[in-house]
């Protein structure tokens, strides 16, 4: 089922943050959402996740408008991976992942054997099953990010919405997280994520949505969308997009963004 944004406009109070945004995402895609701070990326996520009502337009899954879906139905459609934060209580990692089952359980129920199996499978899938009974507050930031992705998996949704999954991660953990995301897309999940690093989009995205001041600047393949003039427009800085020469171990045609000398 495609995820369609149809002329979505929304914001807070009288302030418009997202202005007439339309696009369609397909399952199996990895789409990166880029744009300067305050350009409306987070607000766009809130509109997709129905945390904020669009003032105009609508968000559709397949042919259905999701505006009136229940929270649990939305959670079975969208697995959201927020930026890592630490809750005040020292839950075990498995307990955190099991929270994903809330959307699948009756109000008075608590997770059973089958839910624990699904949670452990998700942890195993991301290679962190050994952390299952560790305290979430005591593991590293990268491990926490992987746990939150595992939780979104255990939610068994068709769409993964990730808010800066690479923020605060070291190089090794960034690569691990992106590999996991790419792999999940290959299994048929649709992925939409924000990032501040165009290089991530070049490496991992099938398509890019570039935003500026609440509107879409470009929506295309990374190579077509992230050109030097577009990046200047979006971020207000002069950069060069450089193709790296063919080397062993690097995908041919890989591009990187380098700032120009002052």
């Amino acid at each position, binding site marked *: 089922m495609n995820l369609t944004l149809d002329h979505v406009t929304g914001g807070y109070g009288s302030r418009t943050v997202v202005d007439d945004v339309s696009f369609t995402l397909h399952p199996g895609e990895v789409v990166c959402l880029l744009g300067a701070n305050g350009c409306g990326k987070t607000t766009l996520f809130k509109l997709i996740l129905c945390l904020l009502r669009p003032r105009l337009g609508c968000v559709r899954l397949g042919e259905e408008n999701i505006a009136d879906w229940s929270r*649990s139905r939305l*959670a079975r459609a969208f697995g959201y991976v927020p930026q890592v934060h630490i809750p*005040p209580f020292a839950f075990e990692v498995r307990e*955190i992942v099991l929270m994903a089952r809330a959307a*699948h359980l009756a109000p008075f129920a608590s997770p059973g054997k089958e839910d624990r199996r699904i949670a452990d499978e998700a942890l195993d*899938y991301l*290679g962190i099953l050994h952390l299952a009974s560790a305290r979430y507050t005591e593991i590293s930031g990268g491990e926490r990010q992987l746990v939150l992705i595992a939780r979104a998996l255990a939610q*068994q949704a*068709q769409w993964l919405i990730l808010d800066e999954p690479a923020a605060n991660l070291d190089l090794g953990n960034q690569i691990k997280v992106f590999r996991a995301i790419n792999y999940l897309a290959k*299994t048929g999940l649709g992925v939409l994520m924000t990032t501040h690093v165009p290089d991530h989009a070049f490496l991992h995205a099938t398509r890019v949505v570039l935003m500026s001041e609440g509107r879409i600047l470009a929506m295309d393949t990374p190579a077509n969308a992230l050109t030097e003039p577009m990046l200047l427009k979006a971020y207000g800085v002069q950069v060069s997009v450089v193709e790296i020469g063919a080397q062993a171990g690097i995908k041919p045609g890989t591009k990187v963004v380098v700032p120009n000398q002052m």
Partner: protein
Amino acid sequence: MGRSFVIIDNAASPQPAVSYKSMATVTSPEKMLEHRKPHRLQSGKTLAVLALLLAVVAIGSAAIGSYPISLHDWWSVLRAPSAGGTAEIVLLQIRLPRLLACILVGSGLALAGASYQGLFNNPMVSPDILGASAGAGLGAAVGILLGFDFVAIQSLSFAGGLVAVLLAWALASGLCRRGDPVLMLVLVGILIGSMFTALISLTKYLADPMNKLPAITFWLLGSFASITHRDVLLAGVPIAAGCIPLLLLRWRLNVLCMGEQEARTLGMNTRAMRFTVIVCATLITAASVSICGMVGWIGLVVPHLARMVVGPNHKFLLPAAAIMGGCFLLLVDDVARTAGALEIPVGILTALIGAPFFLFLLMRERRHKS
């Protein structure tokens, strides 16, 4: 809809030969061992042991007091429950309602406190955060000031607690069209609480210093001395009505601990959940204050104690807190009854014991972290 994320052979997208797992994290054996160590007693067995402890404390508490009851007396009362001896009257008419009230109030307040700490995502919150006990206190003080009879005072007190929290909820809902609803609720609750506390002071100021002022003061200090079977029944209904939904919904409190927005994306109707938890906790707190006055600290301290034993998972935390709350208040009331020639108001003791105990818990936690 319930698709699994296990790889399905799909001709459209060629699958990599290796699973993601094999290229993911390789963990050192030391690290695996480090995370394997069990550090929590999280099971039905722990709860059963705690329940047994409560039974022992209850039986022990029934035995001690100004009229000690031996095991032999216990046995004879149990064998012939209507023989009419002194032991029987002390046990069934005086001690039993008192024990039941202690267990009801202690368990209820600890359960409400643990639920609130999860709901407000803050371990420093207690059941009176939204003004429930200040409201109930005011209701009772006004009842005493106007010279009402005991049942009317209790009813007014119960109603006062409900009104205070209802006011806080309505104001917070009205003020908070957007932003963090939980923060707004806490702020408005503190406001309402201090306003009602000021009104309590006003009733005291207006009260006749010869008879009504001491009555109000003593009532507010909290005591189980004059508890009857009727009180237990009257408070038992709302306390049970509050406890049962909280216990049924307890696992979902875990999800709320991740914060408002995250809980919503995980499929929770947070507003409905918040409303239910607040109504239940308010029923418990208002009913507790209406029969025994203001007994503080239990709802704050006991959940921490329970968290040390069973961990933060509300599925185990709530029952554990309830059982331990009953134990705690029974023990404190034992001290209140037996420590001096005169009975010490139990509210004074819970604060005297609760505050240093809380300090000890904080110090322990700090040592554990470093």
